[in-house]
């Protein structure tokens, strides 16, 4: 097994406990992230649904607004130039806030009206009614546009963060945890091997000791036998006629 599949660490018992703790931590992190990814996905789907509704509504409202522009132009003549020239501050403005969803900060836009209607008197002498309707329709359209923009930015941000979270979940599941597990199994194998070596060493030493002891035992027996033989020899009587068959040393005959 090549070393990059596991963490390089000295295989000792303490390191084993450390690795086991790490594994537990990784598993807990994995389940938490999975919960976060699921929560984000739920919010994602709900935003998607809202976007689809808003876009359909947008189509209808824009059509209505464009038609009311045509009606206003019919009754009131061409007021567009005067309106354009008179433009000063914006009457409808947008504020941005953040919304927190499962730890992810999503930007949200909301509109607010600033100041009074400076075009109250446009169309005073003709087309006034159509103009008020026109203003209402277009302000509805602008409000819907702001909402749609808000939904779309949160959609994009949410998409990013879901990708990131999923990436992390997968990384933990397929890389980190297996790596730690491999490390643990490596340490365990090493430890086992060490134990076996110890065992074998012990056995060998015992064997050797056994041999030495057996040899020593033999020597001792031999010595004992000799001792025995010497003792036996002392008890030999005088009238012991030496026979030629005794194997002892004859003295040499000298003439």
């Amino acid at each position, binding site marked *: 097994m090549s070393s990059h599949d596991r963490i390089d660490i000295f295989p000792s018992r303490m390191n084993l406990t450390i690795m086991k703790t790490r594994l537990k931590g990784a598993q807990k992190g994995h389940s938490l992230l999975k919960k976060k990814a699921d929560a984000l996905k739920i919010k994602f789907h709900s935003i998607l649904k809202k976007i689809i509704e808003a876009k359909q509504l947008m189509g209808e409202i824009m*059509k209505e607004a*464009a*038609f009311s522009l*045509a*009606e206003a*132009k*019919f*009754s009131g*003549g*061409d007021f567009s*130039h*005067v309106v354009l*020239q*008179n*433009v*000063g501050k914006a009457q409808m403005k947008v504020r941005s806030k953040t919304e927190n969803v499962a730890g992810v900060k999503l930007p949200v836009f909301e509109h607010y009206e600033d100041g009074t209607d400076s075009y*109250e*008197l*446009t*169309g*005073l*002498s*003709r*087309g*006034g*009614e*159509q103009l008020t309707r026109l203003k209402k329709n277009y302000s509805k359209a602008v409000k819907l546009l702001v909402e749609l923009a808000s939904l779309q930015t949160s959609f994009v941000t949410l998409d990013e963060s879901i990708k990131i979270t999923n990436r992390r979940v997968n990384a933990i599941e397929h890389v980190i945890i297996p790596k730690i597990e491999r490390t643990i199994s490596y340490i365990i194998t090493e430890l086992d091997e060490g134990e076996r070596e110890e065992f074998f060493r012990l056995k060998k030493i015992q064997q050797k000791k056994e041999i030495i002891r057996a040899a020593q035992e033999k020597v001792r027996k031999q010595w004992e036998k000799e001792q025995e033989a010497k003792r036996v020899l002392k008890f030999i009587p005088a009238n012991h006629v030496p026979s030629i068959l005794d194997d002892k040393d004859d003295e040499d005959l000298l003439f």
Partner: protein
Amino acid sequence: LNFVFFIYFAVNTSGFLEGLVRGFKNGLSKEDYRHLTQCDTLEDLKLHLQGTGYGHFLANEPSPLTVSVIDEKLREKLVIEFEYIRNHAYKDLATFLDFIKYSYMIDNIILLITGTLHQRQLSELLPKCHPLGIFDQMETVTIASTTADLYNAILVDSPLAPFFKECISEEDLNEMNIEIIRNTLYKAYLEAFYDWCQQKGGATADVMCEILAFEADRRSIIITINSFGTELTKEDRAKLYPRRGKLYPDGLLELSKADEYEAVKRVSELYAEYKPLFDGTGNNPGDKTLEDKFFEHEVTLNVNSFMQQFQYGVFYSYVKLKEQECRNIIWIAECIAQRHRAKIDSYIPIM
């Protein structure tokens, strides 16, 4: 006596121009309008218009055709015809035609004032002015940089000076809402026009004074209705009523006290001509609005003016009817372009 008048009129070349105007007036018939409402695209519309008196006025436009291009070209045609008549007219008829031009000049001056007050350039503003309302001294108005200069420039150079002098002072230019300035000018213009026609006498006075009286009353009524719920006070509102209509003086007094639509309706119904206009109006879909009814009445008056000969009213009616026709064509074009055919028949028919 009528015979003498006829010779006098005809000899003064107004007869030639009157004949010309009657020729120009033959616009779209009911059949033509029906064909137009049945078109499916703007190209179809263009094809149908080629068969009418409009001819090939859209011939050189690149496709795709848009409604704003049609609008521009229609207006151009009207301007060319009007300028032709104006260039051939002199003395009284010339003054009359100038009076017609003043209403467009008022719109242009308002545009220039707004633009100058917001420091826009002349080159930006000029193309947006209505071509019938262009007068020679328009550039001097925009060179002015302060409101004092502006006021003096207008007073000195433009033909609208008398209308300004009557009712608007220099401070007003700065403080008054631009719409109020516009309506004040228009009131002065209407009153001056009415007085000139009345002093001219004869058939012109008969025809024009009736038309202008209706215009004055219509403005008073519409201004009153549109001013409900705005910051316009009743006194300021009363200052905008032109004092030449049938509603003057009693009706205008009542109108200036009115607080809601019902009150306005009550006052107007006291006058026989205006009662039928208020019947049958409403805000439900399918109902005609009050403005639509006013448009219809105006069209009727203008068409009737062609029944009388040897009077200048025909020129005024020709301009107004042609404008209404342009508006109708543009309305039909918009309904086709936006595929919103529900209200395509809401144009004002011109018999």
